[in-house]
């Protein structure tokens, strides 16, 4: 019999039967003994034990001028174990479901283009985290300046306490790096374990890769920009021209260009962002109504035109009021303007602020003639002195200009993301179209109710709304494409979100039909407001689809879960 540590022996109470044993066993199971029996002694002065494995995987010194730190991934060494993901999670103390690193797969038919694959099929795992881009989309997009690119290391850091949770960076980053935490109301992301690097330690992922596939290197910024501007980054990944990612993926065995992510061709409905749907639709409605109302007034319109301006102003206020609802920390909404130098979101916030002032002014001018008769004379005189009627047209004109710029900023926010469904005219035409359709429809409704002749406006609304519907419908033809994100968007609209798509076109068509009836002028004027309401509803649904059927840019992922 060999030596047995006495501590482990269970002392059983004498003569107490199975119940006594049970009690003793339960007590024993609650006793923690590992420390006293096995705790390790360590040399407190020594460098971290793991440093012997990662010493060669981190740079010896700081980057020079024109250089920065970058992840360097040896694809040949990455065997797909994903230890980097869990190590990052545990060594950074992340939330239970939070991960800052991800591993996707590229698959491809064999290629005889050099390398060792020798015509056999290709399976390549790709580990990815923040690429600490030269021109980070998150940083450029952030309205609160919650991102900083360290001037020395180039590490892109997120200031968690500065963030107000607008989640725009989750769209502006082409690599799905910033992760939003609902419970915290902010996003967080990989910081390349900057404090570890500063202390001469390796980032968690570098420490944990069994095959040393991830290292930190110093890269030349200009060279990185030149390379990524030519699109040289990784097959089947977002266009590297967007942000100039610094991560270097290297392989000696070669990677055929025809490889595709395991999730290529897969799309699922995205978050619809209801407050943003409301905000965009209502503010565009507002700008349209104020603009059409003003123009009609300049052309001699009456009560109906004034009403359109007031209605437009109110819609704008409502739209701006709901906007903060999508913030994780709405009490910090004022920070939205801080990033005006780089963020279209800040610019949008500022321009809608300007627009709000002028549109309120225009609405005041529109209202004054109707309330003046009830005012004491000195009040109306005072008002006339402070805001002379001569200013009315300039105020309206400025409201239109500010509104148009604000809507343009709104569109730029989404165009900036590089997502195909949001590119160029697909945002601009839609946003401008919404403003025009709803402006015309609203004005035809108010003028119609006021007893004026709204036929011309109704006809215009019918033409523009019809054209917009046709433009939106033209996207569906992309379902037959062989590849590309528009194909996926079209398939989402005809697949998982078919009821929404049907609703969009049905309500839109109903609106057009109603206004057509209003334009013909044969039936009571009720049809203009009815049509305008239907078109407004239709635009809400259009915007819902705009968010929920976009295909985000992303790194190659894993086989999707269905």
């Amino acid at each position, binding site marked *: *019999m*060999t030596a*047995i*540590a006495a501590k*482990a*022996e269970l002392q059983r109470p004498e003569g107490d039967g*199975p119940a006594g*044993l049970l009690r003793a*066993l339960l007590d024993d*199971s*609650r*006793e*923690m*003994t*590992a*420390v006293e*029996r*096995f*705790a*390790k002694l360590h040399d407190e002065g020594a*460098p971290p*034990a793991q*440093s012997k494995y990662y010493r060669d995987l981190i740079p010896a010194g700081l980057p020079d001028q024109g250089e920065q730190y970058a992840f360097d991934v040896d694809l040949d*060494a990455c*065997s797909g*174990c*994903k*230890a980097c993901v869990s*190590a990052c999670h545990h*060594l*950074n*103390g992340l939330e239970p*479901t939070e*991960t800052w690193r991800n591993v996707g797969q590229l698959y491809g038919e064999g290629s005889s283009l050099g390398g*060792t694959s020798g015509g*056999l*099929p290709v399976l390549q795992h790709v580990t990815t985290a923040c690429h600490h881009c030269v021109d980070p989309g998150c940083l450029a997009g952030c309205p609160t300046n919650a991102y900083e690119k*360290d*001037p*020395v*290391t180039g590490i892109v850091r997120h*200031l*968690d*306490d500065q963030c107000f949770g607008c989640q725009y960076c989750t769209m502006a980053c082409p690599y799905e790096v910033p992760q939003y935490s609902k419970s915290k109301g*902010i996003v967080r992301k990989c910081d390349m*374990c900057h404090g570890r690097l*500063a*202390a001469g*330690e390796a980032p968690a992922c570098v*420490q*944990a890769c*069994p*095959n*040393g596939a991830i290292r930190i290197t110093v890269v030349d910024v200009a060279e990185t920009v030149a390379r990524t501007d030519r699109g040289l980054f990784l097959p089947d990944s977002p266009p590297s021209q967007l942000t100039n990612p610094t991560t270097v993926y290297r392989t000696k065995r070669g990677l055929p260009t025809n490889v595709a992510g395991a999730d*290529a061709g*897969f799309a699922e409905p995205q978050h619809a962002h209801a407050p943003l749907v409301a905000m965009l639709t209502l503010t565009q409605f507002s700008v349209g109504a104020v603009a059409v109302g003003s123009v009609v007034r300049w052309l001699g319109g009456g009560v109906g035109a004034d009403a359109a301006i007031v209605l437009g102003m109110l819609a704008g206020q409502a739209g701006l009021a709901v906007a903060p609802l999508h913030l994780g920390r709405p009490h910090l909404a004022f920070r939205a303007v*801080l990033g005006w130098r780089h963020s279209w979101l800040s610019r949008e916030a500022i321009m809608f602020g300007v627009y709000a002032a002028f549109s309120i002014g225009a609405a005041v001018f529109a209202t004054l003639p109707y309330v003046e008769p009830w005012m004491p004379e000195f009040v109306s005189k005072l008002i006339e002195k402070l805001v002379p009627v001569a200013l009315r047209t300039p105020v309206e004109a400025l409201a239109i200009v500010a509104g148009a710029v604000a809507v343009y900023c709104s569109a730029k926010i989404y165009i900036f993301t590089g997502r195909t469904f949001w590119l160029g005219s697909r945002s601009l035409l839609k946003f401008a179209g919404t403003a025009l359709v709803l402006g015309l429809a609203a004005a035809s409704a108010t003028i119609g109710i006021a007893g004026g002749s709204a036929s011309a406006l109704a006809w215009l609304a019918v033409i523009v709304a019809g054209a917009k519907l046709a433009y939106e419908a033209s996207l569906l033809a992309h379902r037959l494409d062989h590849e590309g994100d528009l194909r996926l968007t079209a398939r989402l609209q005809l697949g998982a979100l078919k009821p929404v798509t049907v609703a969009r076109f049905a309500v839109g068509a109903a609106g057009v039909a109603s206004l057509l009836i209003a334009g013909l002028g044969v039936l009571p004027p009720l049809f203009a407001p009815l049509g305008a309401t239907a078109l407004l509803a239709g635009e809400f649904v259009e915007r819902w689809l705009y968010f929920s059927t976009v295909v985000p840019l992303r790194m190659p992922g*894993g*086989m*999707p879960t269905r």
Partner: protein
Amino acid sequence: MSTVTKQPGAESPSEKQGLLGQLLNIVHQKNGVLTRELLREPGRFGLGQVPSRLKPDATTDMVCGYCSTGCSLRIHLKDGEAINLTPTTEYPVNLGMACPKGWEALSVLDADDRATTPLLRTATGDLAPVSWDRAMTTMRDRFQKIGREHGPESVAFLSTGQLVTEEMALLGALTKFGMGMVHGDGNTRQCMATAATAYKESFGFDAPPFTYQDFEESDVIFLVGSNLCVAHPIMWERVCRNPHAPAIIVVDPRRTETAMAATLHLPIKPKSDLSFFYALAHILVREGWIDREYIEESTDRYEEFAEFVHAYTPERAAEASGVPVETIEQVARTIHEGKRVSFWWTMGVNQNYEGTRIAQSLINLALMTGNLGRPGAGANSITGQCNAMGSRIFSNTTGLYAGRDFKNAEHRQEVAEVLDIPVESIPTVDSWPYHQIIEGIRTGAIKGLWVICTNTSHSWIHQEDARELLSKLDFLVVQDMYHTTETAQQADLVLPAAGWGEKEGTFINSERRFGVVKKVRRPPGEALPDFSIFRLVADYWDCGEMFQRWSSPEAAFGVMQDLSRGRPCDLTGMGDYASIDHAGGAQWPCVEPAAEVDQQRRLFEDGRFYHEDGRAKFIWEETRAMPEEPDKSYPYLLLTGRGAASQWHTQTRTGKSAVLRKLYPQSIYVEVHPDDARREGIQQHSQVSVASRRGKLTATAFLTPTVQPGQVFIPMHYEATNRLTLAHFDPYSHQPSYKDCAVKLEALESEL
């Protein structure tokens, strides 16, 4: 911690002062509650920086409880309890690395479906919480009633390769010597039985001869039916550390991660293994590329074997395997030219109706070329579960302790003496293997079953049949960490068990290394370590007296050492847990103190084997066709296997970690070759029906050229997979052959 030099951009956050500071802070807040949540600071204990809120006050090391690699994890403790972990830097197995399962080992202990009290099936069919006393009394009364009516052998048990060795040993003694059971087997039947049988027949003892250092010393590495990168990522780490630029030859029908990393991938047709490896032997014989001296000194029956492989020509192998003759010739030459050739295999060989002979076809290659007992050589079985080896040697199921034989009177006498029990209490016949126990339910021979730490209703081949049979039992007891396992859901009584990290004991890894498991967490509710549950059962069964010596896991380890004395797996020098811990694990045999023996030891360095004549045997057999070849109605061959490194077996644990769940597809999928998909009208990522003659499932199609045309692959981790599999077995090891049955595909979604 060494001195910390600070860099720009790495300043420690400090609150801004004053009114201006507060104002500035509102506009640009660099610090605050949210920032502090992610602060890192030196963790001491040689750890480097750790999250500040998870800073330990002590650490201890223990082996991981998933696979047989046997990595050591450094547990970060606070007030005696585990709060985090990192892989142990110095451990000779994993050298500071771990796979995601290891990193996540603690989080799965917190799952909300942990069994916290015993659960008893009520009259209305629900599982309702009961006291331990009620549970134990019911279990005893029901099993004893069955025993009285049908004989004690009508109650059986199914155990596991996931318990600590001490628990397996106590369970084996309790059931067979105390409770009178005859039949008990482990889920190791599903993973390692083939390797164990092959070694026993060839070497005279179930003795994997290698040490992991061999991965680093080989110049030719054969990996057969092993996706090492995914199934054993840390062993792959050792291959990557090999400084000799080895030839890595991967034999696998699928283009796996490991195949990608190989210098040569041989995508042989499924079940052409024997033809292929016999052809290699054929060429070696033909060319005289053999180690004549080794053959003469250390082996038996070479000449007959050489005669036998004469018929297995490279042409025949090329025909069977689809690998060109020139490649086969070249592979044989690679073996010949290699100085240190190692042959490694795992489930592709083991879970195969010809598995034992295939394993031996590799052993034969090693023997005839003298590639055994030398650094970087060997015919090496890579084990599955963390303690499959413990189960093979000490579970007292199909073999008596320490590789003994129930039918051998001398062996029974030895065990009776060590345990101080009447020799008559030791059964004189072998236990039935797993599939005969299951079959015994059908015939009425088995009426009561105790399932410990395994998930038969998910993992057993031809699942529907297995489930139906389990439902026929008079009384089914399931002992598990989770009350939600498919098998627990069928149980009459569920016993709540403590998990890895909540109890003590040892695991034995692939390379025969004992490692210590420690108690670093409190089990939830009234869950008890399996060891304690067994002691409780003994007490209620009124045979507690028989197990006086088994007073604690460490005491049981002492018993095991005594049982091992003089056996090939002699542990008598290992000392106690602390000495194993301090030695960095200890490989058997170990007759000297653990701290004084070499950390990397291999067997058979003297060319002597465990057969009475000291020689290893060449063993062979004609190859046989698979019983259910694909045909017109079921045109595809279904392969099953490991999905991702973050998945483990039936997912009872890995399914409980939010991080691991992000690392593999949540729903079942089937890999289909694009050509087959085109023919069947199956779109990428669409839903398809996969049906065999036994069952049917719906899966997401994943079109990939990494499976060959005519074959489909479904990971084994999804519950539905085994609805399809065909119950057939290796006749020697009785291991189920999971990787060959015919299925058909049907597209369930058409193009938009």
